[in-house]
């Protein structure tokens, strides 16, 4: 009896020791740092453009930057409830005080963070009346990320606007790693005349004189030249117009016959286009740099081939062909070999597909396809050949890629008249860009290089 009780007591005593002993066999937790990346699609960093002084051009710059950052669709733009009356500027600094950099600035990072901003942008005057500083603050990191100097010329000068758009694109790059699309333009045709407009919808300007009928415009890879067809009495010639100098030259072999749907390869070497003749419509290419060497790429016989678009690596051309009966999207090598179907379709069921455009990153083709009699925007993944529909309201056609590869401009009649609209392919956000009488055939430029005027 005693012994059993003693044993039991010993066991009871030993149990916690056993537990402790068990603990001793677990390896110790290592001290250190763990790094991980959480990807939440649809969640965008908060961006706030700070209010402040309204003197001179500061306000214009602030407004342009705010809109450009919003139009990039990469941020949750934070606007303050009382608007600009609540000045969240850099406190402790008087207007007109000596140049920046004299003393450390105070930025109320905790307040910005409380408002939901991950980045904030300030536009600040300097001692130089023609100079401004644009600063990007990393709120979480509580530090200034980058700053840019802007020289203010006339706010109405288009070069000034372009310079501010370049700053906006760099702000986007500093925040998310890829530049924005503010410093780009669109070409469009209205009432037969060619116009250009900035990516934010401002500065709609006629490019060609009245009296010329323009068709199927596109850009060269520098964004400084427009390439388009001039129609005349049933024929059409392709013209390259230098938008800076205002000079225009006809591409030699297109002086006769009906030539249209021009496209320029990303390295600027080749011009691809279609030519309609009695034998049918076919795709041709011409060496723009050597100004020679016209080649026919498709031999239609009883079908039409048109609307070529280059892959960004310059190796392939997607185009429209009626060889299967209706209009569908095909692809071939740039020398015309290896022609095959690109965007799959069901014969007799799928509507006509037209106006293909290869995305700048090479991964997608945007085009329009008839759905129950109305054209709608579609995207096709180049690798998987999976096709998805982007729009369904109204008639939507003629898509063209922005240089960021995630925005498309297109023509929609959803308001009753044909206008240029833009869509962000990732978030689905749709916006109207133009309000002119009648818009057709848009083309989005590459990022426009800064040009120093002679």
């Amino acid at each position, binding site marked *: 009896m005693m012994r059993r009780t003693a044993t039991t007591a010993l066991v009871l005593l030993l149990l916690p020791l056993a537990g402790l002993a068990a603990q001793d066999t677990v390896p110790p937790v290592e001290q250190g740092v763990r790094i991980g990346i959480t990807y939440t699609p649809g969640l965008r960093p908060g961006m706030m453009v700070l209010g402040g002084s309204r003197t001179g051009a500061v306000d214009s710059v602030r407004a342009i930057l705010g809109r450009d950052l919003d139009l990039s669709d990469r941020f949750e733009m934070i606007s303050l409830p009382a608007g600009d009356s609540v000045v969240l500027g850099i406190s402790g600094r008087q207007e007109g005080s000596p140049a920046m950099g004299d003393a450390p600035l105070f930025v109320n990072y905790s307040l910005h963070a409380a408002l939901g901003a991950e980045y904030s942008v300030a536009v600040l005057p300097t001692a130089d009346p023609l100079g401004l500083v644009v600063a990007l603050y990393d709120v979480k990191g509580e530090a200034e990320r980058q700053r840019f100097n802007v020289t203010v010329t006339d706010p109405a000068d288009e070069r000034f606007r372009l310079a501010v758009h370049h700053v906006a694109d760099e702000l986007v790059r500093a925040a998310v790693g890829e530049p924005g699309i503010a410093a780009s333009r669109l070409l469009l045709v209205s009432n037969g005349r060619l116009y250009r407009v900035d990516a934010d919808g401002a500065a709609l300007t006629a490019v060609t004189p009245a009296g010329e009928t323009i068709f199927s415009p596109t850009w060269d890879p520098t964004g400084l030249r427009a390439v388009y067809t001039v129609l005349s009495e049933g024929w059409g010639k392709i013209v390259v117009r230098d938008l800076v100098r205002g000079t225009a030259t006809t591409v030699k072999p297109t002086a006769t016959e009906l030539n249209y749907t021009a496209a320029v390869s990303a390295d600027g070497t080749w011009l691809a286009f279609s030519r309609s003749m009695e034998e*049918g419509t076919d795709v041709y290419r011409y060496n723009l740099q050597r100004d020679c060497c016209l080649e026919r790429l498709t031999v239609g016989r009883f079908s039409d081939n*048109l609307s070529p678009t280059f892959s960004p690596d310059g190796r392939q051309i997607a185009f*429209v062909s009626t060889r299967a009966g209706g*209009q569908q999207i095909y692809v071939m090598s740039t020398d015309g070999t290896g022609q095959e179907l690109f965007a799959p379709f069901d014969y007799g069921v799928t509507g006509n597909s037209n*106006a293909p455009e290869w995305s700048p990153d090479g991964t997608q083709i945007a085009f329009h396809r008839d759905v129950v009699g109305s054209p709608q925007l579609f995207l096709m993944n180049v690798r998987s050949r999976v096709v998805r529909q982007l729009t369904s309201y109204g008639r939507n056609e003629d898509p063209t890629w922005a240089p960021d590869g995630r925005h498309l401009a297109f023509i929609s009649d959803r308001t009753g008249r044909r206008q240029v609209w833009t869509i962000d392919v990732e978030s689905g956000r749709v916006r109207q860009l133009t309000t002119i009488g009648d818009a057709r055939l848009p083309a989005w430029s590459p990022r426009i290089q800064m040009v120093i005027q002679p």
Partner: protein
Amino acid sequence: MKLKISLVIGVAVMLVAAACGGGQPEPVAPAIDSTAIKDSIARAEARRRAYEDSVARARAEEERLRSEREEAARREAAMTAEVRNMLGTMIHFDFDKSAVRPGMDTDVLQSKLALLQANPAVSLEIVGNCDERGSDEYNMALGMRRATAAKKWLTDRGIADGRITVKSMGEENPIDPAHSEDAWTKNRRDEFNLTAGGAKLVKPAGM
């Protein structure tokens, strides 16, 4: 007239000669054959009237010929205008199609065929058009197909290839800019323009 004057001068000379006879013996005036003179006056008169008659007849003839020519020119111009009109008659197409439709459209082409055969100097240009639906750029190609279809119909029946050129204006040149079925029907068409030989056109017999 000349005869009369000569006669009068002759008589006058004779009288003067008779008056200025002087110491010469009075010559015996020749016997004046008044009948002969009257006759020759009458004959001169007759000849003059005949001359005037022939002039008048010639003028009338000229007048007649001229009005006949004018009449012919008017008929010619009217026929040329009529043929020009017939050559310019448009044909129409079904939506998204470029086939020539049997019936009214082939009748129009048939009359063009006859006119082209009767007027070998004529050259035509056929311009294809579309309505505003469908891809803007594809409609250029479709317009060209429509023009080519009409050309082929004619060349298949013997018209020389070099007499017809084909062009397209896609949807860029509508006849009716409205957005209705009616307007679209009018816009889907081939237009025919004379490019040579249009100065004088004839209708073949039986048309």
